[in-house]
């Protein structure tokens, strides 16, 4: 039963990506469960969500140390959640840095080696420069689709499931941008496989 954990900063679009991934799993014929965070945690704080799929899923929360995939929308948040991964787990990381307020204020230090530490812990790490790819696709708001594109290389969902999921859940005017972002991420993922 594959599990994916999505880690990022509130406002980065993790909830939308969670929905797209879950829908793609459903369209691929699996039982699916997600858990999401809404409300206060979305105001620029750490957010994690999870998608689990398989024959039959019970808990919407992923037991620690068992996830097959982690999608990190930001490096520090990726490092924070990397313990969710099974030893063989794949980290798909946007090498993007957003300083949290304690760092902005100089009360704490951003771990400069966040990416290295993720790579050390994960079974495999795929670096997806989602900000650049999303801009290339046409909008910063498509970062999540870049990461999903890279993930798509490692899961057995038919291409059609992904595209339908993106079409269904991304705002109409951003569907093309997100499909393009997905393709860019997928190309990058394929080269890392």
């Amino acid at each position, binding site marked *: 039963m594959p599990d994916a954990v999505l880690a990022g900063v509130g406002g980065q679009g993790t909830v939308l990506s969670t929905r797209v991934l879950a829908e793609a799993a459903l369209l691929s014929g699996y039982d699916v469960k997600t858990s999401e965070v809404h409300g206060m945690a979305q105001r620029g704080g750490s957010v994690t969500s999870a998608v689990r799929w398989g024959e039959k899923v019970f808990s919407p929360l992923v037991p620690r*140390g068992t996830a097959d995939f982690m999608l990190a929308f930001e490096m520090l948040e990726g490092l924070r959640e*990397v313990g969710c991964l099974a030893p063989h787990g794949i980290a798909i990381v946007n090498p993007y840095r957003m300083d*949290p307020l304690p760092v902005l204020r100089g009360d704490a230090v951003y771990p400069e080696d966040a990416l290295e530490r993720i790579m050390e812990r994960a079974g495999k790490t795929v670096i997806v420069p989602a900000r650049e790819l999303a801009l290339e696709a046409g909008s910063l708001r498509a970062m999540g689709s870049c990461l999903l594109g890279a993930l798509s290389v490692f899961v057995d969902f038919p291409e059609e499931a992904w595209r339908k999921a993106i079409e269904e859940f991304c705002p109409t005017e951003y569907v093309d941008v997100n499909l393009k972002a997905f393709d860019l991420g997928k190309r990058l993922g394929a080269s890392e496989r």
Partner: protein
Amino acid sequence: MKRKVLLSGNEAVALGAYQAGVAVAAAYPGTPSTQILEEMSKFPEVYCEWSSNEKVALEVAIGAALGGKRSLAAMKHVGLNVAADSWMTLTYIGVNAGLVLAVADDPGMHSSQNEQDTRYYALMAKAPMLEPSDSQEALELVKEAFHISERFDLPVLLRLETRISHSRTVVEVEDGVREEVDLPYSKDAVKRVMVPAHARLRHPVLLSKLEELRRFGESFAYNRVEMGDPRVGIVTSGVCYQYVREAFPEASVLKLTMTHPLPERLLRDFCSRFRRVYVVEELEPFLENSLKAMGIDAVGKSRIPRMGELNPDIVAEALRELVELDGGKPPKLWPSAAAEDKATEDKAELPPRPPVMCPGCPHRGLFFALGRARATVSGDIGCYTLSVLPPLNGIDCQVCMGAGIGLALGLERAFSQSELNAERAGRVVGLLGDSTFIHAGIPALIDMVYNKTPVTVVILDNRTTAMTGFQDHPGTGRTIKGEETHALDLEALSLAVGVRRVRVVDPWRLEETEEVLREELAASEPSVVISRRGCSLRERPEKVVPFWVDPDDCDSCWRCMRLGCPALSRRDEKAWIDGDLCRGCSMCAQLCRKEAIEEVEHA
């Protein structure tokens, strides 16, 4: 035709209520319950409203049910505190058409001020309670709840939790289903007017209904025994059922879905097959204590935490030892212990990322100015609570919705009689948002005027209910359905209750805001300052012109950093603005003495 779709628990409740023929639905937004009404409002046949608070929402639902139409009220756990007065007597009078109260708990406090356990409200009011374990059950149980409600002439409490409300699970949906319910209304004052003489007649009726409900629960199909390993018996409900099945897939499980009143015979029968049973429930030992009161050897909170969320790891760890002693199969061993690796150990040392006020947030300007005006600030529930963090350190105390003003009144009364805190007297601010003010602040504002307490009330009017995701409220001029309506005039309201000093400021203008706050704090009578500007996430201008810092002019004084804006950081010992995040509010530029911060276009 049936389709398989992914629905959150909240979406499933809304769909179930629609299919059950709900005609009236009312709520006040509150995480994790908010989306129930948002989803319901998409059905054109259903009258929906954002009520001014949860008490009104429940009362609207009660009225509709008495009037012969099925109704739904939705709220978060602490919302039921507000609605509790109506809730506690509703069970005496009964409903006529069905009424379901959906209440979402927030174990772990993802977005709440406490983690109270709603189940006790069913116990106190003697109301039936159902708890779904996933979205499919949520959909089905709402419909069951309406049948139970009408059969027993009682409201039904549908208890949800964050991981039910905000988890998406697969639901089989049938289109074109909707029951039609239209029951006659007839006056029945003995049943519905709770003067003491009538209430004394109704209480025994309620008690006998509770007995009938208990018998009903014994054969209620959703209370389910799943026999497995005959040595390990677990009693559970709600989302915990999923954690139990994940952690102990072989165990025998009694999955309770009607958790009040409890099916005593079913419980005794199940528990008698085991030397002892385990009770897996979040928060309080609600089920466990009931089992113990029946004389059943139940293990629960001695092993399982009484606070925070549970998950499969916690359940597995907590019960592993005893289950093995019972001769049961140990839990599927995840590498929890192994996951205590370097990465996890290091987690505690990573810089935290608390939620913050957004770039361009109008609250930031108000709190900056308030900090300079040196006041004791009694705060409230909303995005502005985030000002509690450094560098703004904007709030002294906060309890619940609407408490901002009341606490301020008491603080002022204490300070003005104190020698130790005398310098704080006359410098007390009670502060709350527009929606919160309407929810529960107005009676306290009247109290301030009536009792002549010289406090300054600040209403942070950002024209929306921001924290829960931008819901309309009586001040926005729009209903939940997007129709135009009267917009409450906060100035006129303040004047009408007798506040003579009412000021309006634009919090993006720091100096002016500070000046007004100083004047109102200095005034020796009650005053109201309305800090008015639309939420920066909600009201985006056509084109945002971000600011930038000219590093040649920046003298690294860090005055701008005192705003705590997430778009501002230090880079190479100079202030730096992230152009992706900046909303162009100009507050940092107003603080810069060197005029080093300017609009990007001018660069």
